[in-house]
């Protein structure tokens, strides 16, 4: 495989169910060592895109590839998947699942599995149907990571987990990527993507609205916070410029979201005598909400 070619590739992927188009013309390339967070509201097409990538669904048009080739059974020697619904066997115990993984995955590392079971505090003798939703998610993660995959696809990986274990999951993804692995994960929680991902893809209604490097995305977009000694003066004239996305007022502070900052807004505010002007990076949540609402 060419080192520059993407590990995960969606090319003009469209998936239609009868009259409903779940994914429309999705093109997304994820490079080796990258963690890509797939964000989007319910019904955005995230799970459908992942299922098509893994061969559970056949594309209506377009193509998907892992390591430059369509998915085949051999792909799963180095690709692990954690589904949104656990997919585990309720009648089997935790230990039997680990044994099943050992028998069915050539790259299974028993020591790693034991270590991860300990991290999540999973009781080996417990039947899966008696585990909580979070514990099932944790077991699915243990099985996925015990195979030391080069490609990790996770659909809502922290679903049902408490905040401590959510953090553990994010750290495990970061570890996997730092060892050269490639991670694609979907989430509803913008904070998780912001913490773990280096790239973000935002989908809505089956369409990819944005795909970008997280740091440069946050770096481009700024928030200018201007505080005034008393009531906020009428700034309409000053803020009627193209770079301004949104203006919010709270007390005697005004927050102005701008696409990029070249000092123009601060100059325009200066005549109104603010007591302070602060320029901060926008967080991913603001960007996500703007993108989703802008394109709707």
């Amino acid at each position, binding site marked *: 495989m060419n080192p520059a070619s993407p590990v995960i590739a969606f090319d003009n992927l469209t998936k239609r169910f009868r009259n409903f188009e779940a994914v429309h013309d999705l093109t997304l390339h994820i490079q080796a060592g990258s963690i890509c967070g797939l964000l989007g509201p319910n019904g955005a097409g995230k799970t459908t895109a992942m*299922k098509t990538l*893994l*061969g*559970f*669904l*056949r594309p209506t048009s377009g193509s998907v590839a892992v390591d430059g080739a369509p998915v085949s*059974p*051999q*792909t*799963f*020697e180095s*690709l*692990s*998947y954690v*589904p949104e*619904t656990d*997919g*585990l*066997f309720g*009648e*089997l115990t935790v230990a*039997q699942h680990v*044994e*099943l993984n050992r*028998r*069915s*995955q*050539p790259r299974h590392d028993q020591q790693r599995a034991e270590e991860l079971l300990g991290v999540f505090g999973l009781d080996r003798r417990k039947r899966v149907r008696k585990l909580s939703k979070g514990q099932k998610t944790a077991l699915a993660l243990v099985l996925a990571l015990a195979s030391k995959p080069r490609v990790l696809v996770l659909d809502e990986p922290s679903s049902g987990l408490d905040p401590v274990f959510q953090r553990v999951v994010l750290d495990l993804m970061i570890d996997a990527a730092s060892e050269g692995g490639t991670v694609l994960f979907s989430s509803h929680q913008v904070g998780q993507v912001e913490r773990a991902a280096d790239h973000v893809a935002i989908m809505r209604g089956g369409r990819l609205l944005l795909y970008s490097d997280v740091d440069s995305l946050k770096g481009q977009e700024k928030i200018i916070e201007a505080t005034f000694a008393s009531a906020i003066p009428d700034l309409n004239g000053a803020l009627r410029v193209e770079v301004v996305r949104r203006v919010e007022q709270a007390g005697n502070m005004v927050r102005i979201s701008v696409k990029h900052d070249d000092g123009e807004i601060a100059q325009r505010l200066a005549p109104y005598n603010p007591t302070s002007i602060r320029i901060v990076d926008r967080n991913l949540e603001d960007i996500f909400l703007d993108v989703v609402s802008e394109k709707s």
Partner: protein
Amino acid sequence: MYYVEVLFARSRLFWFTAVALLVAAVFTYFVTFPPPHAHIVNNGQDVPFDGVLGFAGFFASIMASMLAATLNRDQSHLPYLWTRPTSRERIALTYIVVDVLTIIAAFAIIAGLCLLVLAIPPQNRTVYDEHTGVMLARSLAFPLMLYGVVEAATSWAPMRLAAAGGLIWPIGLAIDFLAEINLPFPLAQIFYAINIFNPMAYIAGMQMGGHATITGSTALPFDFNGQTYLAFAIFVVSCIIATYNWKRMQA
């Protein structure tokens, strides 16, 4: 992937054997120590081995019903099963092979228990005749065909059809009944054609008396042996169809 199906089949076989042992023990107890008011006269009689085989085949078909729809049963586990470095055909065939071996084991257990019970005083005599070979084939063909037909009928479905293994009994018996009676044209021909794929029609072909009377079902084409071959052929084709359907399914 045989491990998960082995665990499932083993647990079903365990309960099947436990119930069979219990029934055999109770039967043996009452024959050996009849209640004082009971008047049982049995100085030993000839029991055709063909009957034992038919009996074992019938109970093996209950095990087949319990195991059937195995590919459909695992719908909710597809995210796990289909992300193994093993082809889907191989996973499906592994499941089918494990189930078939379990059905044969159930058949052997029931046949063995029957022989054991028959050997207990007053010492019935098990009679082997020239039909033993064909009856063995027919008694195995019926549960295997039942398993295959249910598997093929359910493997494609995205929804759970776990009850199919049980529902095939009343539905199959009803179809066989309709194929046997004189319905007007074209209903008679339609039910006759459907009945070819109805496992229940193949059990109806075994008629046992003091010695087994080996006759083919009147609602099926061919003679007894031809029907047995047909049952095996339908089993094999059904398993191929089930595997293909399962492989092509979208989840």
